[in-house]
């Protein structure tokens, strides 16, 4: 078996053995989506729920994939297993590729569960093709998030050092991608919902709009908004979808340079 697949299998084995983490990363998005439903139920009639339902699901997948991947990789560094992998002959690209494959398994599960729940709870009647396209964009966002997690982990020496990156990356995502939403799902959630401010990115000042372009959620949100718009077509937002793909590729290249093989 190739070494990338060995890393991926090991990452999946770890995830499957850690039932608590696995449960939390599937159940937490579901609980949050449900809270969102309760929140939206209080809105006056005429409020466009669909505008937010799927983007929030996408955001949750983005956040969890990023955070879990970054933390577990930093644990590998502090525990010495990263060094041990290198000494045993695993190469950087094999470890990054393995993580990507392993975490995509988890992100796929999260994407399916969260999307299914928003569609059912909010009674969204999207066609099969739209649903498939939505799933594809959430999935592409998950890839970008895992890459972001790997990239960020190379700058953090301890698990706790991942946390400053949350406001740095996740918070701007929330503001600048056209969404203002939870960044630490279980704790900050109520306050974020209470202040529930939602901004379209074209209403932002130019500099903030440009800054938003650095974040993968912005592209995913553009694609999602087009897909759920009546008469919207994927063909109109190919650029954003391509940007999301390019984003992952650039991060892959960056991470494969910044993940240090030697001290």
């Amino acid at each position, binding site marked *: 078996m190739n070494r990338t697949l060995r890393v991926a299998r090991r990452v999946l084995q770890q995830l499957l053995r850690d039932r608590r983490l696995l449960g939390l990363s599937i159940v937490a998005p579901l609980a949050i989506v449900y809270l969102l439903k309760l929140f939206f139920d209080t809105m006056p009639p005429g409020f466009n729920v669909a505008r937010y339902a799927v983007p929030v699901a996408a955001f949750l997948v983005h956040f969890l994939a990023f955070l879990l991947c970054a933390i577990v990789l930093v644990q590998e560094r502090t525990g010495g297993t990263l060094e*041990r992998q290198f000494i045993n002959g695993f190469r950087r690209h094999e470890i990054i590729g393995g993580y990507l494959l392993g975490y995509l398994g988890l992100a796929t599960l999260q994407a399916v569960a969260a999307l299914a729940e928003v569609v059912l709870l909010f009674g969204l009647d999207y066609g099969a093709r739209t649903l498939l396209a939505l799933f594809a964009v959430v999935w592409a966002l998950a890839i970008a998030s895992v890459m972001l997690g790997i990239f960020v982990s190379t700058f953090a020496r301890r698990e706790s050092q991942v946390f400053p990156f949350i406001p740095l990356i996740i918070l701007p995502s929330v503001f600048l991608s056209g969404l203002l939403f939870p960044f630490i799902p279980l704790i900050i959630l109520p306050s974020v919902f209470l202040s529930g401010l939602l901004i379209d990115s074209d209403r932002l000042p130019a500099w903030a709009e440009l800054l938003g372009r650095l974040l993968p959620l912005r592209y995913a949100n553009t694609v999602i908004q087009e897909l759920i718009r009546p008469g919207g077509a994927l063909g109109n937002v190919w650029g954003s979808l391509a940007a999301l793909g390019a984003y992952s590729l650039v991060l892959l290249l960056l991470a494969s340079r910044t993940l240090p093989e030697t001290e």
Partner: protein
Amino acid sequence: MATTHNVTMSATPRDAGRRGAGEARAQEPAIEVNGLTKRYGAFEALRGVDLAVPRGALFGLVGPNGAGKSTLIKALVGALRPSGGGVRVLGLDPLRERAAVRRQLGYMPQSPALYEDLSARDNVAFFGGAHGVPDLRRRVEEVLAFTDLAARAGDGVATFSGGMKRRVSLAAALIHRPPVLFLDEPTAAVDPALRARFWDLFRSLAASGVTLFISTHLMDEALLCDRIAILRRGRIIAADTPRGLLERGRTRLTVRRGGVDEARTIGGRPEDLAAALHPYGLAREIGAVAVEAESLETVILGLIGEE
């Protein structure tokens, strides 16, 4: 864990034992270190280390905590870029000839460095997989049996004691049958019975021709090595056989004659002891006398074994 110990932790230098077989190949060292330095900012962790370890040797790197032992081992396994000087393992540069070197060396780091969520078997198999070990499954069971882990092979490492984690870590270092093994304080914080068992394993590996490079801060362990280097503040301050080092020391000799103790200090060589005893009537043809007492640990382990 085996309860019998055919290895004692006593002060028995073993430089006489396996010399003959390795003599011919000893021309080409397994490990060479030349003028190695490593700086972390203003701090110099290694300050010009020179070493040569013959093939098939059981080599002990002795030194207090913070002497630079782990740094030296990391440079040897290619986990660290030296600031100056060079290292060679089996004639290869661990950084430039990475792939070739990594197949040949096994490394057991100071911390267990294992995946706690995985079983002992999955951990060992994962690292074995990196080397493309043929018939991996069988080899994993073999190496787990060698380290006395067969009974708990399927259990999560998180449930293991410190000593068991070390055995898993050793198994992971041995999985691809490397001809050179680097063990960074393999017996730190390990109970005496397991330490004895570890040295049992190290000896059997050395007997099969593996070169072992073991760091320790325990002096009685150093005595079990073929050669020792003493590292202090990033410098090798002595390198010799255990006997050679002991002979540099002094022996306190007390002879009771007619109820009166006569004490004096003599050299550490067996010849010195014989010479000191000649005035007391030791036959002139006896040129050397060596006394090797068991260590307190060996005596205690013996008592535990009798229980």
